[in-house]
């Protein structure tokens, strides 16, 4: 008997479902960062507002990258419904705490897909995922570094203003 499903599609139904879940998660991240950008802007943290707006765009790009992969492999990419975005934050620091938490959850999610790929011996998707796993290094580093600024600079006096100015300058290099 011919493996008709395989002829139609390179990835399994399980992997396809996981990737569609990830598409939704990236869309959620993108919306969350946009909400953070809005909050920062309204509270006078303009540099952080820019930083989160840029992050939001990156997450959208991640979403589209996954979307394209699912389609290119012959699968059904699902445009996600995004709901339940947190829009109110207790303070400047909480925004960054939430950002790091969100990135950690994304890393975990990719690890979960990777482990499924290993189980199925889907090395093609695994190779595709490597880009994201590497990207998560940078994403977590940046979120962690931003939070570190609250310790290093301190929130007292003009501290928050100083932190805001530095957030936009955070970069990551492997070397």
């Amino acid at each position, binding site marked *: *008997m*011919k*493996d*008709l*499903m*395989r002829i*139609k*599609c390179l990835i399994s*139904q399980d992997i396809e479902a996981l990737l569609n879940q990830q598409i939704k998660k990236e869309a959620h991240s993108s919306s969350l960062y946009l909400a953070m950008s809005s909050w920062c802007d309204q509270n006078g943290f303009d540099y952080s507002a820019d930083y989160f707006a840029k992050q939001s765009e990156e997450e959208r790009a991640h979403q589209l990258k996954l979307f394209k992969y699912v389609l290119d492999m012959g699968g*059904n990419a699902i445009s996600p419904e995004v709901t339940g975005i947190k829009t109110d934050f207790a303070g400047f620091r909480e925004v960054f705490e939430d950002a790091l938490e969100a990135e950690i959850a994304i890393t975990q999610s990719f690890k979960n897909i990777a482990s499924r790929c290993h189980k199925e011996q889907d090395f093609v998707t695994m190779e595709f995922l490597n880009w994201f796993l590497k990207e998560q290094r940078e994403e977590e580093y940046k979120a962690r570094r931003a939070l570190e600024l609250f310790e290093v600079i301190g929130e007292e006096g003009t501290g928050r203003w100083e932190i805001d100015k530095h957030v936009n300058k955070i970069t990551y290099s492997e070397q």
Partner: protein
Amino acid sequence: MEKACIDINELINVFSTDRGSVYQSDKLNCFYVDFGGKFARYNCLSLQKLKNIVEGIDVEALLLNTNKADFELITFNGCDHIYLLSALEIVSLKELLQGAFTMFKLNHLISDCLYRLTV
């Protein structure tokens, strides 16, 4: 008329229950679902859609809802068939499709191994 094509296209029985069968045609790269008095042709995409829709039906809710008949209309865009099924028939169709997809999976595992071994 469609039944007449079966022999010509050498249908493979993928999975059967006492309520119905799913066949595959290697010649035409398609599937046939024999269920509820219908012999319906599907491609990969539409068979998956059918399975998703049937799996998505909350049979329990259907039975508990007293404002509605215990029947569900099953069809989707691009599908040439309409099923009007009772709760019991939905359970049967679900079982049939899940069985067929399990066989597809098994077939995939086997052909994956054989292909790798021979190439």
